[in-house]
């Protein structure tokens, strides 16, 4: 049914931002290779949402399973940003944690996480928060076993809250222009600190502070993709092959990288100031650049590519 129809979608034409989690998974991997774990027919739904009179989803907003990508076996998880903002509830988190733990047994070539999340689901906040901590521990275990964990970020809900921390634990990240990575979201900062600190209605400000281009230029992400499933597939295959190890040397390098970022950009108020210091000639034009022009800029920025994760 839906899976067959999705399998016929052209990955070159399918917008990652607009696609559902199932459409992304189906078009991302080799045709017909996806096998879902705990699929919707098993109806593993949230035991908590009915208390809040809220509708449930048969998959609790996350699709997990195994597949091949370019002929190599991977495990993957895809969050559905359209259900409860892709937020981590008890079942949702348990599925991701279970998948990561299974990777230690199955030893796939990589684990892919298709982030699309506002963070913790507040109706199940304690379970979501704890699951995020469990997922981070599991990712470290998987990486230490030599299995890359690659995050793909370009969905409607972005990658916020604890999702941002999980992303920061991955071996590699690919991001599109629409993929925002942040801990506190714009509305959260505005609610707590006022519109003078962050005007959440200023969408241009949101994109250049948390969006994919800024993260890519500053080394927060390792690949920049056009908003198509085909572009994310290409990035995922490439990033799997150059994932850094998880060890003391890598974390020392990350410590130095993050300290250097504060030293160099700590007094910047706006992303355009950061980009200017990175050597971008006309920073105001960055948000409007197409992928090819942006890639040409990235190629000249030393901070963008590194193994310090």
């Amino acid at each position, binding site marked *: 049914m839906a899976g067959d129809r999705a399998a016929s979608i052209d990955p070159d034409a399918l917008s990652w931002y607009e696609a559902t989690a199932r459409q992304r998974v189906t078009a991302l991997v080799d045709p017909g290779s996806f096998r879902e774990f705990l699929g919707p027919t098993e109806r593993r739904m949230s035991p908590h949402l009915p208390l809040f009179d809220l509708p449930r989803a048969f998959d609790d907003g996350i699709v997990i399973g195994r597949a091949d990508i370019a002929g190599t076996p991977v495990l993957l998880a895809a969050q559905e940003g359209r259900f409860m903002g892709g937020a981590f509830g008890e079942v949702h988190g348990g599925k991701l944690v279970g998948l990561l733990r299974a990777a230690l047994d199955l030893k796939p070539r990589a684990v892919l996480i298709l982030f699309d999340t506002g963070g913790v689901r507040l109706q199940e906040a*304690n379970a979501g928060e704890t699951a995020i901590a469990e997922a981070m521990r599991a990712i470290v275990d998987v990486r230490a076993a030599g299995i890359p964990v690659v995050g793909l970020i370009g969905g409607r809900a972005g990658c916020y809250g604890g999702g941002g921390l999980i992303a920061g634990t991955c071996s590699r990240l690919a991001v599109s222009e629409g993929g925002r990575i942040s801990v506190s979201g714009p509305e959260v900062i505005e609610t707590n600190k006022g519109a003078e600190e962050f005007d959440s209605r200023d969408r241009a400000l949101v994109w250049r502070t948390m969006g994919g281009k800024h993260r890519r230029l500053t080394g927060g992400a390792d690949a920049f993709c056009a908003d198509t499933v085909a572009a994310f597939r290409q990035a995922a295959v490439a990033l799997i092959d150059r994932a850094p190890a998880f060890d003391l040397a890598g974390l020392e390098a990350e410590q130095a990288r*993050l300290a250097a970022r504060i030293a160099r950009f700590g007094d910047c108020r706006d992303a355009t100031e950061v980009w200017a210091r990175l050597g971008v000639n006309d920073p105001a034009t960055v948000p409007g650049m197409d992928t090819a022009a942006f890639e040409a800029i990235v190629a000249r920025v030393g901070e963008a590519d590194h193994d310090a994760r």
Partner: protein
Amino acid sequence: MTLAEILLGLFPDGHAVAVRDGLVTGSGPFGDGRIHVVGVDGDAPLGIEGALTLSRAVLDAVRAGDVAPILVAVDSDSQRMSRRDELLGLNEYLAHLAKALLLADRSGHPTIGLIYGHSAAGAFIATALATRVLAALPGANPSVMDLPSVARVTKLPLEKLQDMATSTPVFAPGLDNMVATGAVHVVLDPGKPLPGQIGALIAGMQPGDVRDRLGEERGGRPVARAVAAAVADQARLG
């Protein structure tokens, strides 16, 4: 208990633990060796500089190669909420701190969280929740979000949430609920000496992540463990 009382209880013969700008770093004598202490005090928010100071201390401990325990003492606010922190990539800094603690654990340092005050959201995940065993002192107040904020976001009346919170540990703030969820392993007895209680936690550490099993046994997270186990089963069967 205050941090000063905790340090006095842990190190009656003195210590080299300092608090600066709400950040705790140092070490003190413990058993036949030493114990490292890092943390956040005074309900301070954790921003990019603070996270980097703590991760530096943790990585120094790993580099020393002494496999001494690391105590992560926490009375913090949430992550620092600011445009600047997010502009500079706060998610990377907080994840880096958590990774440093997880690396230390993998490298043979027993890591013990000790929450004695507040903590919330990203700061909680990057510190106390990145340890192998998380203990609490009575009066600690971990949370994801306070109930008035939950009411705002969920558009439910505060009175209804307060009523639900008495019977539903999965969403409500507070220590008891975090214990029920399995995030907090144990609540310590402030009337007994701390070194013995911390030492017992280190001696009793189990491999793997036991938090979902604790959450199932205590009823605060009834299905997470079974869900994760079912995923592993189906993955094995292919």
